[in-house]
């Protein structure tokens, strides 16, 4: 049974996709992933494209069904949530924001109508509607007067991302899956959105699963870090510990490729992204028989799959 102290627990989660009809191929997107998310923390899930990080987000949001394993929200297996009412309650508490804010909105509706619909569909008290919508917009530094009457295409990417955050505030979300939330924004807008997100998380006790491939961002905002490689979690723990003392060869390769303004890449070092496949194989071979092990407190590494 999952520990009640965690708001979300994932146990032995796997997802296999089938592609093709006549000669189907099976793609293992997520393989035996387990982790727990304490309430009120920010946890980043870092991996490259195709590593399965987005699949994990989708599984938690019940957009796809797991092939094996369990996801518990407040101790309850989410696969058991089937009827419409319960599902609605779940989505009131667990929400996702994705990379492309333009794709999230219905472009035929003005912002006020979008917020009205959300508010009404979750059956909140109608009397406070206007006041509450204004308050959440102000919380994300948007001017309600200048925002509500507009269509999504009249707003910038940064403003739309703020609107999505406002939406989660309107619904008292407890777990936010933020998938590459700011990848499409430019450098000066990014940090504002990030700060806003962390402030709100601390203020409202929201937990965030921050999915990204940017290690700099991960370090900046997260309490915990999980590194994914080829569908598996290979290293996880306290952010500082993982960054200061990376053990898995894949994590080490990632850190070597981060561009840093204080340090230049070593020109003499031969750097091939493909090489990591062999390094990981060799690492697993050396540590045969071992599995997930703690290397220090709050820092675990996959030694051999």
């Amino acid at each position, binding site marked *: 049974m999952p520990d009640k102290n965690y708001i979300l627990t994932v146990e032995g989660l796997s997802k296999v996709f089938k592609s093709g009809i006549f000669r189907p191929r099976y793609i293992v997107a997520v393989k035996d992933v387990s982790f727990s998310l304490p309430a009120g923390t920010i946890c980043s899930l870092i991996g490259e494209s195709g590593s399965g990080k987005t699949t994990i987000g989708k599984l938690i949001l019940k957009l796809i069904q797991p092939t094996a394993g369990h996801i518990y929200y407040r101790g309850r297996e989410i696969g058991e949530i089937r009827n419409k009412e319960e599902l609605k309650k779940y989505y009131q508490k667990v929400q996702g924001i994705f990379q492309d804010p333009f794709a999230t909105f219905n472009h035929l509706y003005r912002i006020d109508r979008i917020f009205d619909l959300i508010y009404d569909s979750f059956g909140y008290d109608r009397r406070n509607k206007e006041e509450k919508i204004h308050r959440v917009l102000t919380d994300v530094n948007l001017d309600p007067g200048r925002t509500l009457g507009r269509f999504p295409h009249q707003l910038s990417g940064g403003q739309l991302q703020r609107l999505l955050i406002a939406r989660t505030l309107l619904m008292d979300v407890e777990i936010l899956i933020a998938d590459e939330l700011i990848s499409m924004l430019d450098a000066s807008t990014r*940090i504002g959105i990030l700060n806003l997100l962390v402030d709100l998380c601390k203020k409202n006790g929201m937990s965030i699963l921050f999915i990204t491939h940017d290690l700099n961002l991960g370090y900046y905002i997260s309490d915990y870090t999980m590194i994914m490689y080829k569908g598996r979690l290979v290293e996880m723990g306290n952010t500082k510990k993982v960054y200061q003392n990376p053990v898995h060869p894949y994590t080490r390769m990632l850190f070597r490729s981060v*561009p840093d303004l204080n340090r*230049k890449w070593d020109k003499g070092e031969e750097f091939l992204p493909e090489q990591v496949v062999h390094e990981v194989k060799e690492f697993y071979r050396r540590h045969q028989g071992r599995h997930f092990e703690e290397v220090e407190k709050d820092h675990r590494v996959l030694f051999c799959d």
Partner: protein
Amino acid sequence: MDRGFLTKIEERLRFVNLDPSVLDRYPMELSGGMKQRVVMVLSTILDPDFLIADEITSALDVSSQRFVATLLVNLREEGIIGSALFITHDLSTLYQIAERIMIMYAGHLVEIGPAEEIIKRPRHPYTKALIASLPKVGVAYRERRLSGIKGTPPSLLNIGAGCRFRERCPYQGGQCEKTPVREEINEEHHISCWRWKEIGSDNIA
């Protein structure tokens, strides 16, 4: 196809660490990093004097980013390309490979100079703010909160005269209503800001 040309293509593919068998594959069968390398082979096969590389690393994973960016430098060092203009919003990657950096804001040149000087001793208020807003490993929200740049970029319709950054600039003053002229800090380093002398080059990072 001309045999000699095919050999050249195969050589170049090996140079970017791709197996020549990719020639028999469709683009959808390749990963993003591999596709970008194929594009680099395609666009440099005629040994251009000048290559414009527009956000070539933005859609890639960190490890492919490093590989592709370094590749550009190697192509130059091998004499395959002459010079390259690397257009990007990712200053940290740019700093790894560029000799000179030019910063633009709302269609105007803001500052141009040697990469080392721009990053370590930025002079223009926009360059300073931009560098200060970059998250980096070792800077955590809990310990040091970074600040973004207030406001949003101006609309370019009927923008009129004046420094285009002035609305968001902490040093905004009287002369800023006039379009700044390009001045020389030293032979290599130029800037468009009325107040660069009083602002100085104290680093923020």
